[in-house]
């Protein structure tokens, strides 16, 4: 046959079942912070949903499909299409890496299937590339920059030197940070775009330059991510910049990064987090369950996947159908409080899901009392402030 989904007849649900598709990186740079454990998180959500609604549930048959997109947009593209066409997926979840995320947004729009992006940071998902079926769930560059930039300027130092990887994400972060810093009364005394990808892994020329700037920066803001972040931090310590009076703020950091660098290497560093497992009792309890399932502590991406799956199922339940347009209508404007979304709201204008965010600081090694409990939360940034206002670029 010529492809295309088969219709399930008169049932309200196509094929009388719901299929959730987790499409993410299961072998590359983001596999630990999300990866296959996000599939576990989604399975937990299904179990909880069934436990909660019992026989009232829309259908008994709720399953999860998953695929590895290897952080490659072309793979993401074909996997997303295959998920919809061949596996009957009703909603796609996660999709880290901005390029892949944007590509899948196209697929969602074309195939009219829901798409909850969790892993990607680009604000384009709620800007010029937004569409009716795409929801941006967990975080974005604005949230990261705004929180860290504002609070660090107020509390640590006004003069910044910004080092960013010279590509869309990095440039985006640099602009957002600069805006946040200036708005908070600070100034950026220097900024440099480092090559991306940086094959040599060397940042020494930038790090050597930082303390010699005039006026001398009090904060080095690094926008590097993943392995590049690790390189910057290692070399930051090697050149003893903290001793020279230059503190460190990080644009994008995951708990897994702290784990690999060790808290000792990062003590005192500030960054913005979307969710923290040891923040309160509710988080902690869920984190304990999660650890039983997976053997590790959850990152915010795991919690967000759980939450997104749950919200989708609730919406289908409420709409009584898995018809995408009906579910979208159900979701738009909804206000939520759950494990992940605190004071959450699914904005109808641009499908940005807003919620409280947190300014976190890495504890000194001495204060780390249990594995993975690496940070203290300095401040909760209220949902209304944490995210940008809907962009005029977005026309759903």
């Amino acid at each position, binding site marked *: 046959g010529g492809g295309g989904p088969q219709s399930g007849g008169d049932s309200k649900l196509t094929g009388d079942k719901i299929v959730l598709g987790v499409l993410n990186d299961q072998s590359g740079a983001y596999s630990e912070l999300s990866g296959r454990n996000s599939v576990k998180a989604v399975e937990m959500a299904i179990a909880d949903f069934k436990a909660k609604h019992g026989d009232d549930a829309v259908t008994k048959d709720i399953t999860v499909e998953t695929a590895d997109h290897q952080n490659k947009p072309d793979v993401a593209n074909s996997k997303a299409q295959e998920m919809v066409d061949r596996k009957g997926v009703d909603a796609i979840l996660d999709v880290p890496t901005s390029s892949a995320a944007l590509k899948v947004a196209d697929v969602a729009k074309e195939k009219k299937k829901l798409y909850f992006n969790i892993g990607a940071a680009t604000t384009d998902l709620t800007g010029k590339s937004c569409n009716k079926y795409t929801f941006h769930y967990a975080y974005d560059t604005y949230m990261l920059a705004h929180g860290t930039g504002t609070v660090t300027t107020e509390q640590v130092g006004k003069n910044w030197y910004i080092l960013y990887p010279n590509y869309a994400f990095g440039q985006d972060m640099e602009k957002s940070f600069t805006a946040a810093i200036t708005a908070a009364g600070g100034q950026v005394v220097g900024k440099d775009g*480092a090559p991306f990808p940086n*094959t*040599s*892994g060397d940042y*020494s*020329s930038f790090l050597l*330059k930082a303390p010699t700037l005039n006026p001398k920066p009090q904060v080095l803001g690094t926008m590097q991510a993943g392995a590049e972040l690790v390189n910057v931090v290692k070399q930051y310590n090697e050149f003893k910049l903290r001793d020279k009076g230059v503190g460190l703020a990080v644009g994008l950091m995951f708990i897994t990064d702290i*784990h690999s660098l060790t808290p*000792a290497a990062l003590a005192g560093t500030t960054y913005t987090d979307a969710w923290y497992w040891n923040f309160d009792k509710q988080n902690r309890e869920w984190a304990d369950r999660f650890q039983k399932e997976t053997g590790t502590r959850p990152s915010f991406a795991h919690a967000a996947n759980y939450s997104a799956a749950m919200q989708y199922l609730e919406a289908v339940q409420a709409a009584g159908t898995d018809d995408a347009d009906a579910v979208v209508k159900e979701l738009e404007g909804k206000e939520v409080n759950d494990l992940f979304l605190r004071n959450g709201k699914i904005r109808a204008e641009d499908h940005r899901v807003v919620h409280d965010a947190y300014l976190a600081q890495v504890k000194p090694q001495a204060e780390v009392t249990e594995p993975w409990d690496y940070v203290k939360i300095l401040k909760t940034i209220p949902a209304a402030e944490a995210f940008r206002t809907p962009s005029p670029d977005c026309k759903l």
Partner: protein
Amino acid sequence: MSGFLQNTFNGLVGGAFYALLALGLAVIFGMLRVVNFAHGAFYMLGAFGAYVLLAEAGVPFWAALVIMPLALGLLGMVLERAVIHRLTRLDPLYNFLLTFGLTLILQDLVKSRYGVQSSPYATPTELSGTVDFGLFDFPTYRVFILGFTVLLCVAVWWVLGRTRIGMVVRAATERPELTRAFGIDVGKWVTPVFGFGIALAGLAGVLAAPMRAVNPLMGADLIIVVFAVVVIGGLGSIFGSVAAGFGIGLIQAWGEAYLSDYPLVSQTVVFVVMAAVLLWRPAGLFGREEAPA
């Protein structure tokens, strides 16, 4: 001025890694006519091994600096015996392909065991300070890397170029059958040389561990730059590879420091230099005329 000197110093340190990797590549190539694509993967294994030793057995940096090259050298020897060896009579391209496949395998093995996250590795405390050079100060660890690498390169160059061992090994690899007919047990030599080249890559990896992110992909893109370096220096030439390694390190560091508005420059400068060398001296700056391949 002090800024310039600092950047120069940094370039040499960065170049030291290129030089060590290029040296291993050149040694293996010179002796076996094998271009070892997996060299970057062994560099990664060196760094990773150091991390695993530290994290799981508490073995410190200094011990790792000895253990890892030895262990990897041994692994290299096993590999040579088990697979590389079978291809010696064939076009060297087959070994290039084989080691390419090996690279994918090694990377994925490490990845599936330890994940892709970077692993922590601290600078050894003895070297964690800075050295005061009057005009500027510089991390002790970097000074150590530079001194250590230069010494090592000189030693290797001397052994291969000036001693009987070097001579036998060169002969054995150029025409193994003939050399056997002259009473030399060729098999005895090839394997250790391969192991030695791999050990050099492992050594570079251990040296990199405290400075750079330790993860399964750390050698993947690096190796391509190193290929360009050896093309520039002349693959057959030990001296050329090392010199080109330091040279490219310097050019990159200067480019990064003074042309930081043009990141493309520092990324591609090595390839531009390579193109120029190909135009001007196809055999590489220090290369002999190409052995007919």
